[in-house]
């Protein structure tokens, strides 16, 4: 991440000079900070609401019910999580919310799952295999119906905006599956840096 972040900033400044847009690049620093805080502020409300709703789902046993339904599949994708850990319920609901296009609900639920994964993570600064897998599933953006895009197409006079549903499903499905397979493959190439600690423990 250190190199990538540095690289993004370096490329910006170099191209700012080449394209004569250095002033715009400088201004973007301030508009960027403003945007970041605005996103965080919006997040406060959404997070608060969904964490509340999720607590209710947890206390009522609904989360556990969904968790049990999905466990057989989940332990295949997340072999390192104990099958009695209720984080599986959160992961299942994060996936469902994403699939249904409820991005506002998916993010808080996903973060809750991340917190539980962090509890069982050994190196608190470095991502565990399960965390990387959860994020692979989330960055792939699997969605059953791309409602936003359909709405934009319809608003601009498209005759059959729903014709993109099946093609989009094929694309997002294959990206999702490759994300899971890639995550499995890459975790062997990039093992946790604290291997020593892991072998000491177990």
């Amino acid at each position, binding site marked *: 991440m250190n190199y990538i972040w540095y690289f993004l900033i370096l490329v910006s400044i170099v191209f700012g000079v080449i394209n004569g847009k250095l002033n715009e690049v400088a201004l973007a620093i301030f508009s960027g900070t403003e945007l970041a805080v605005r996103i965080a502020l919006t997040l406060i409300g959404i997070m608060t609401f969904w964490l509340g709703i999720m607590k209710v789902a947890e206390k009522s046993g609904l989360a556990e019910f969904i968790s049990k339904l999905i466990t057989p599949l989940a332990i295949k994708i997340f072999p390192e999580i104990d099958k009695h850990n209720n984080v599986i319920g959160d992961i299942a609901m994060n996936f469902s919310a994403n699939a249904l296009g409820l991005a506002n609900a998916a993010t808080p639920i996903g973060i809750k799952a991340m917190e539980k994964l962090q509890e069982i993570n050994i190196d608190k600064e470095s991502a565990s295999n399960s965390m990387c897998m959860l994020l692979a599933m989330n960055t792939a953006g699997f969605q059953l119906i791309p409602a936003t895009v359909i709405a934009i197409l319809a608003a601009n006079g498209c005759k059959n905006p729903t014709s993109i549903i099946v*093609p989009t499903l094929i694309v997002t499905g294959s990206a999702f599956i490759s994300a899971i397979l890639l995550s499995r493959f890459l975790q062997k190439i990039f093992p946790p840096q604290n291997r020593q600690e892991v072998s000491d423990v177990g």
Partner: protein
Amino acid sequence: MSVKAVIDLISVLLLPSVILIILTVALVRKVPVYEVFIEGAKDGVKVSFNVIPYLVAMIVAISMLRASGALESVAAIFSTLLNKINLPAEILPLAFIRSLSGSAAIGIFSDIIANNDINSYTSKLAAIMLGSSETTFYVLTVYFGAVGIKKYRYSLICGLSADLVGIIMSVVVARCFFS
């Protein structure tokens, strides 16, 4: 009812029904819903504030990159190559930006459909590309930021590779369906 009307109806009903189901099940099972909601909601502020340093770092870098015109410059280099394999060059900025910024991707998409026939292959390809993707950088920043993970290991490579699969598949599938 048309397919479009059904989808609209589902989109409108989905969120309220999920909330209603969760609360109803809880109430039936004698859970004090209001009190439990408040108890769970307390963490929201803390988690959101944790994300701020991560968000500032990432969004400033991406804003700078967009302002520098680097994406357009790279797209211009590739465009002659793309035209040779019959791929519209306007798609390229969208392919680049969709992993970096969701709102920028929607902006570029709006540009593409404004400058092309809405029912054309180019517009449909752009729609599929946008609809099948998620903002990889944003997701990584927020999720890892919320729990204080600083070393992402292979997550970015994994996310961007899956995005690349999505881009290639968009072109393949759009050709099969719309050209």
